[in-house]
């Protein structure tokens, strides 16, 4: 799969791209036959475009940083622990959270398709679904991290989690030093999507989040 995108032409014009025209015809037939409700399609899009996203995963990480008992529950049985924060659903039915340590850095991939923890991170970015990442994460994880500008200490080992079943993985990054005075909301603001995939680290200060 390529990393470029087909873009719609101006919706107001009559020159839809071929795939946009074909998708529109498909939607017409599915609505006409009563298989889909257009309002439900709009609700699905709204849910995954504007509601579900990495801000939810960041809340989970921040809670784990400030609450050792929660952190333990999260690492032992992630799905019910995440549900304590009101987070759950499609794409996060069977969560596994893996903690980075000074010795081990975790990286999440789906070499076979695009499995990704929707409930805590939303829908995956194009690079996560594309061949360069899916092919190389398992054989050259340091090279992949280099593409993101992330260089780990030489002594740090990497564990790559390939999402080959319905288990969905999220990385619990290490809390950055110098954040002792921050509250949970301020900590959550340090946690990027990439930090929870393993292709990044939390920002050192809030201004860099």
């Amino acid at each position, binding site marked *: 799969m390529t990393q470029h995108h087909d873009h719609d032409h101006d919706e107001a014009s009559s020159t839809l791209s071929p795939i946009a025209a074909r998708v529109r015809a498909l939607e017409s037939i599915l609505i006409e036959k009563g298989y889909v409700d257009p*309002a439900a399609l*709009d609700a699905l899009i709204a*849910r995954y475009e504007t509601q579900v996203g990495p801000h939810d995963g960041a809340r989970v990480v921040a809670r784990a940083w400030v609450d050792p008992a929660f952190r333990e529950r999260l690492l032992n049985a992630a799905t019910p622990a995440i549900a304590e924060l009101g987070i759950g659903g499609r794409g996060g039915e069977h969560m596994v959270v893996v903690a980075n340590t000074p010795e081990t850095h975790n990286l999440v991939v789906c*070499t076979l398709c695009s499995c990704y923890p929707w409930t805590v991170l939303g829908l995956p970015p194009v*690079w996560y679904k594309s061949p360069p990442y899916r092919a190389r994460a398992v054989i050259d994880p340091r090279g992949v991290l280099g593409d993101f500008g992330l260089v780990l200490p030489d002594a740090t080992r990497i564990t790559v989690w*390939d999402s080959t079943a319905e288990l969905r993985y999220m990385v619990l990054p290490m809390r950055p030093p110098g954040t002792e005075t921050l509250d949970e909301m301020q900590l959550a603001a340090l946690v990027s999507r990439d930090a929870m995939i393993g292709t990044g680290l939390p920002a050192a200060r809030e201004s860099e989040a």
Partner: protein
Amino acid sequence: MNGGHDLGGMMGFGPVVPEPGEPVFHAEWERRVFAMALAMGFTGTWSLDASRSAREDMPPAEYLSASYYAIWHTALERQIVENALATPDEIAHGTPVIPARPVTRVLRADAVGPRFGSGFPSDRPAPGPARYAVGDAVVARNIHPVGHTRLPRYVRGRTGTIERMHGAFVFPDTNARGAGESPQWLYTVGFTATALWGETGAVGDYVIVAAFESYLEPAGTST
């Protein structure tokens, strides 16, 4: 199947190129394809495993040159036709000709929050005791199913260790072809990078896969 989707360890695709400030969707048609795929899955006509199978069935050259939602779109059209929900002509013109086929359920807008907020778990009661325990050495079997499977090529024939047990889950290989959920024990299996990649792998690195019981055999037995 040994398709164009089974990418682990392949080379030559170039660097990963993150897109700063990437939007969730890049075109209106991507939004509609995404939502239609979820809503059609909700009708109960086919499983998520069947959808994955339809996407990875594309000829590798096509799969690797199509964008992500273009793959979803191609597979969705194919599943609709194969399940007799619409004809290719109807899909091409957007005009119904034959009557609709009844489906089990239709997703309504007010059900999106509750149903997708609670999810669709795929764990099931275990069919029997687990064959393996944490710490066991296992070999990923050297199998090459022509249909859907979730055992990636790069681990086949390699020895790893059972790290966690997850109970039983729907078995994708049978469920994808409508042959039943046939739940199996699911394990976290850890492989050293050197076991998978020889001297290309870094000592101390690991690759973890989730593997169904029938993908594995005890280490030390012949394949």
